[in-house]
């Protein structure tokens, strides 16, 4: 009995539970494109809607996109929780929109787009899209950055709340429910309603390395106002020091890349410019701002919105390890392939050499053929297929093919060498060399020489060049030059004339000094000193008459120096008068006159002169001289 009951219970459980289990394990997926026919270059939106009860669908992938490149992706997750009579039901939804750009004509099966739920990946049905030549696609309504609803107040208009959205920024309910991308977030908006933001993927690069430059427009989703930019006043950024390759077509519409949270508000972010820039030289290179003028909303009409000026610090790749033949600017990752046909020819004949250069980066527009004597490379015919490459279409690259006609003038097995292209790989930070070996061609000699065939011998270019040297000479050791030193100019060149000049000047100065000294020596003051010295000496001697004569002379000299009068030859009271007239006190004048008289008398007295008297007179004479000096 127990067995049938258990079986019945199991059967009922399976019948009741299995549909639910099936529903939970397989999410509902729906993929669709907004159009089924587009022109080359047009954007088609592939939308995948996934609903699951198990968990949030994650990691959406568009699948294969032959003929298209993915230009952008936006995701909108949603959750619904319903409780009925105590039974809780959860629904998780994810809507993903991929912007795909058509690249070539044809019918393509896109996808299948997939999502991951609970660790398992589920696929929707692929979508078929027809791509027709550019401009021949069906007309679609212009996608404008305007309010798509018929209500003038903007999205989210409710008849129950007619004032909602009338005052932009004050209605919290105006914020759309979208998933924001942290990578697009900014610290603060650069303007109200709308602003532009420019960014580069790398602010330092080497010459020739790609710098991905993007300009985004941010639209305030919650502002509730229609925004319109004046198409006639859109000024592109300037990047004169870069080679510029647009990765989006100029006429292409802005691509939605997601939503951003900027200062607490949700902004819709569109990519409007994407360029691959290749620096032309080292230095601090500048990317100028892009600017637009707003037309709507009216409150902001006429206001400008511009990006910041960006700087990129550019250096040259290192010299160490640089392979011979490296040309500055060849940066990326390249490969070469070559084909030579035919391999057998006659002397003077030609072969075709097809060289294909491909890779990412600024694919060089020219390659250096392996020129050598007897092999003439004519100018190549170049074909190119370059543009944006990669899944994200954020890398420039492609291929260029060079078709040469090569004339071989030598006979025998002629090695054409190899085509090489050295480049700097910025990812691996090292040099690489792309090579394509051309191999050997077999050249049959021809009997007809230029002379025999009647052709005039070609005139040799640059005749008579001297021979090659195969040993380095070495650089001359640098030595100090004497004229770099000040001592050379001061002592070597200047000293000789300077010494002569000093000698000439010194001699003249010496003469002037001697003359001045002599003149000073002959002055009354000097004479007085001499007379006083002579009187002292005479008074210490034994000749009294000589002492009296010296005393008289000293007094006369003192009269000249201190009174400015000459009393020599004056008789009687004339000495006193002269001195008084010169301002000497009568007392002093009388003393001088008396002393002169006494000296005169002692000198010419018939008796023997008295030396002690003379010394006494000299003491009195010195007092008289001091008295005249103090006057």
């Amino acid at each position: 009995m127990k067995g049938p009951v258990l079986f019945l219970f199991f059967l009922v459980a399976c019948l009741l539970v299995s549909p639910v289990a099936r529903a939970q394990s397989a999410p509902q997926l729906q993929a669709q494109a907004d159009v089924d026919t587009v022109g080359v270059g047009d954007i088609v939106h592939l939308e995948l809607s996934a609903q699951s009860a198990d968990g949030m669908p994650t990691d959406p992938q568009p699948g294969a996109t032959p003929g298209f490149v993915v230009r952008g992706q936006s995701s909108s997750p949603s959750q619904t929780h319903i409780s009925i009579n105590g039974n809780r039901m959860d629904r998780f939804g994810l809507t993903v929109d991929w912007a795909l750009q058509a690249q070539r004509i044809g019918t393509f099966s896109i996808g299948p787009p997939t999502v991951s739920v609970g660790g398992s990946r589920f696929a929707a049905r692929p979508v078929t899209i027809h791509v027709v030549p550019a401009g021949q696609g069906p007309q679609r309504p212009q996608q404008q950055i305007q309010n798509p609803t018929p209500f003038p107040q903007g999205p989210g208009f409710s008849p129950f709340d007619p004032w909602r959205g009338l005052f932009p920024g004050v209605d919290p309910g105006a914020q759309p429910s979208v998933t924001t991308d942290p990578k697009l977030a900014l610290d603060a908006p650069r303007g109200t309603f709308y602003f532009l933001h420019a960014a580069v993927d790398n602010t330092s690069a080497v010459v020739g390395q790609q710098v991905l430059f993007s300009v985004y427009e941010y639209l305030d989703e919650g502002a509730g106002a229609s925004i319109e930019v004046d198409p006639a006043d859109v000024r592109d950024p300037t990047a004169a020091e870069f080679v510029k390759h647009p990765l989006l077509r100029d006429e292409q519409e802005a691509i939605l890349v997601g939503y951003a949270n900027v200062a607490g508000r949700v902004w819709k972010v569109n990519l409007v410019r994407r360029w691959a820039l290749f620096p032309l030289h080292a230095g601090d290179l500048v990317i100028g701002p892009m600017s637009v003028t707003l037309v709507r909303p009216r409150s902001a009409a006429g206001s400008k919105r511009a990006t910041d000026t960006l700087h990129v610090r550019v250096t040259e790749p290192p010299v160490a390890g640089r392979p011979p033949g490296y040309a500055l600017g060849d940066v990326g990752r390249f490969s070469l392939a070559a084909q030579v046909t035919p391999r057998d020819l006659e002397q003077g004949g030609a072969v075709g050499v097809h060289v294909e250069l491909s890779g990412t980066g600024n694919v060089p527009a020219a390659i250096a053929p392996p020129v050598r004597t007897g092999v003439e490379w004519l100018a190549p015919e170049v074909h190119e297929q370059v543009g944006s490459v990669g899944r994200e279409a954020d890398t420039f690259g492609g291929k260029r093919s060079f078709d040469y006609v090569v004339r071989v003038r030598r006979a025998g097995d002629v090695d054409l060498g190899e085509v090489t292209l050295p480049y700097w790989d910025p990812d691996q930070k090292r040099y690489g060399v792309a090579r394509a070996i051309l191999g050997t061609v077999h050249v049959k000699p021809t009997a007809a020489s230029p002379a025999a065939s009647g052709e005039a011998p070609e005139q040799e270019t640059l005749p008579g060049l001297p021979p090659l040297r195969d040993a380095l000479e070495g650089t001359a050791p640098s030595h100090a030059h004497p004229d770099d030193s000040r001592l050379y100019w001061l002592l070597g060149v200047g000293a000789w004339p300077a010494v002569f000049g000093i000698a000439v000047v010194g001699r003249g100065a010496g003469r002037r000094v001697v003359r001045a000294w002599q003149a000073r020596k002959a002055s009354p003051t000097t004479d007085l000193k001499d007379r006083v010295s002579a009187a002292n000496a005479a008074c210490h001697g034994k000749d009294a008459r000589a002492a009296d004569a010296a005393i008289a002379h000293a007094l006369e000299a003192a009269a000249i120096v201190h009174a400015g009068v000459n009393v020599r030859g004056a008789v009687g009271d004339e000495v006193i008068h002269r001195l008084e007239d010169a301002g000497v006190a009568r007392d002093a004048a009388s003393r001088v006159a008396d002393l002169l008289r006494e000296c005169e008398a002692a000198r010419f007295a018939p008796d023997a002169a008295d030396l002690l008297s003379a010394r006494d007179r000299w003491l009195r004479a010195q007092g008289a001289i001091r008295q005249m000096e103090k006057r």
Partner: protein
Amino acid sequence: MKGLGFFVAFLVLFSCASSVRADDDPAALFAQATQALKEGRAGDAIASFEALADRGVVDPVASYDRGLAYATRVRIGAEVPGDLGRAAHGFEEARDLSRDTRLTDDATHALTVVRSEVARRRTRAGQPVEVDPGRSLSRTVASLLAEDTWAAMAVGSSALLALGLFARWLARAPRLRVACGVAAGIAAPMLAVSIAMTLAARHDRLGLREAVVVTSSARPTDERGIALAGATPLPEGARVEILEARGPWTRVRFGAIDASVAAASLRDLAR
């Protein structure tokens, strides 16, 4: 078997290391370059010589051989525009740097060959054939003697002048006074000239920057980079004096011409 694998790996690593060394070793690069030039592989030779120059190797023989490599590329019919100018640059540099008179003579001869070709082409194009207007008189005189020789002459002249004046000043004998006066009279202008030439040579050594035009023609422009109407382009291979470098434009003097040309059309001469 395992040992053989290690051996092969060692050989591969060794060959890689050798190639790295060859890329960085100037002597190996020079050997590669001369070997390529001997074998007529002018393009490979130029690549190696230029790699040598990139590494800062300044040698008269390297410059001379580099000039020959460019000339060879012209000669074998694989000329790239500017090759003649670059050849002239190599020879000019070799002539300036070398102390070997034979190398100097060879470089001068090669320079004549290259400039003759440039002149021939300009004649065909109906342009003036003057390729080398020569240097100014003062610079030519200054370059007659080495700077140190001028410096020594200045010292000698100075001493002679001073001694002559001294002797004339001190001497009493009339004949001696006349002789000393004559000596001083000769020494004075000699001193002035030797000082001027010493200063000129020093200025050239410290401040003179010269370059060679390495494009087919360098069109003179004004200070804004606008081509001067009616101005004759500077010839390829012309040696010019750099007066001022302003970003993409360089003001140069070529004979009596004083104009700006694109900096990319010039290559500086090493000193």
